[in-house]
């Protein structure tokens, strides 16, 4: 039941040649990007309002910490009930996967802005919204980047879990299909694709951005 590396390589090649992997990748990435984008947007908004309004911090803030420890796939039964066996259900799971970590990272970032930076900006006449956009937000970028990287990892896992159960034509669904027809070389080649994509995006893209940001913000350990 364990296919040889050559069979897997063969399946990979065939899959890319006949375009079935490309279609699956496209479908998966579409869901991922929508869900991830929503997660980042909602996460930043929630994070900002948690730090700005005490009442939100005491209500939503506590809730977020609780929700963070719930794996987002746990929401799938509810999502299927609300949205049916649809794209929306999977996107919902992906969004939930990334939102909470983005929220906490945004809030931490804003809380950890060095007070002397905002004080310096205030003596130069900055205040209110201007102070927030020009100083507080850029000063918390290191935390935002970390949040985005973690949110990406969580969203990616949530997507795979959601697709394994949900319908459509993504990588996860292909994996289920491979299991159903007993095609283990298909299952393994999709695992290879998942691993490679994860590696490329996390190590090459996010870690690089993170390192550059940390250096520029003077936070890198040398």
């Amino acid at each position, binding site marked *: 039941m364990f296919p040889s590396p050559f069979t897997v390589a063969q399946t990979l090649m065939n899959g890319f040649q006949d375009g079935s992997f490309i279609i699956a990748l496209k479908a998966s990435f579409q869901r991922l990007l929508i869900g991830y984008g929503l997660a980042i947007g909602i996460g930043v908004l929630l994070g900002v309002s948690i730090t700005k309004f005490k009442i939100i911090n005491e209500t939503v803030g506590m809730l977020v910490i609780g929700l963070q420890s719930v794996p987002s796939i746990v929401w799938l039964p509810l999502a299927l009930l609300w949205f049916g066996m649809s794209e929306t259900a999977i996107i919902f799971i992906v969004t939930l996967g990334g939102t909470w970590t983005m929220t906490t990272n945004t809030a931490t970032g804003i809380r950890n802005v060095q007070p*002397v*930076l905002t004080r*310096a900006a*205030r*003596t*130069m*006449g900055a205040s209110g919204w201007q102070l927030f956009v020009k*100083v507080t937000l850029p000063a918390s970028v290191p935390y935002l980047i970390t949040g985005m990287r973690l949110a990406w990892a969580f969203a990616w896992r949530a997507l795979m879990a959601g697709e394994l159960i949900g319908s459509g034509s993504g990588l996860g669904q292909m994996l289920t299909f491979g299991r159903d027809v007993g095609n283990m070389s298909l299952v393994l080649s999709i695992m290879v694709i998942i691993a490679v994509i994860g590696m490329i995006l996390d190590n090459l893209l996010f870690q690089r951005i993170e390192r550059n940001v940390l250096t*520029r913000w003077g936070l890198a350990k040398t």
Partner: protein
Amino acid sequence: MAIQIKGIGKSFPQNGKQTNVLVNVNLTVNDGDFVSLLGPSGCGKSTLLNIIAGLEKSTLGEVIVDQQVVTGPASDRVMVFQEAALFPWLSVIDNVMFGLKIKGVSSKQAEEMAQETLKMVHLGRFTKAHPHELSGGMKQRVAIARALVMNPKYLLMDEPFGALDEQTKLLLHSELQDIWQKTKKTIIFVTHSIHEAVQLSNRIVLLGTRPGRIIKEFAIPYSQPRGKNDPNLTYIEGQIFDDLKVEIEKVMQEEVDHDYHVTPNRLPWSSDRDMGSHI
């Protein structure tokens, strides 16, 4: 009568009781003055500067700047901090242009002004660099340029050279004197270094501790630039030290043992050096 500080008091609750940081501080700063606020750590000199800047509220009294009561920070009173507090995501020139852009100066004009001011602090070559590439002294130069470019009437400096090494500090001292003479700004300078205060300022306000209050004022009527070994200055330094001694003793007695005291021209007292009195 540019800045009038009237009956300023500041207290905050600590361990359930009110701690007085500043009590009844009255001071008038005239246009063109270079006033040093000098005192031991914990005397509230930085707090007083923050109140003048409008960054902190006083519990009692008021600060009047050009006939107007201070209610918050304003760009006619720009502050330079001990940490350069540069914005790490902006290049040197963008840092200097920050305040101008807030003020609504056009980018082109702001850039010209920033270039000019950076030349004044001898950083004309580093406009495109980022703060993490600069040394401590260079960062502080940028911070000074960032304040000067706003052309504030008052320059507030909170131990701006406190974190720098001795050589850099000496250079920046003479440059600050030069800037003061060129721009005729009114400078309020917070420091704990007697030498620095005597070298730079024309007035020294001595603050005592627990509670923070003004204990004495010195005028330094000598021309600048001032020599490092000018006997007049050394004499004043000695005088100031005598006045500060009591205050330093107070701080030390709280921080170390209660029997700590300072005797002129002696090492701190120790029973080991009590030669033979208990034979």
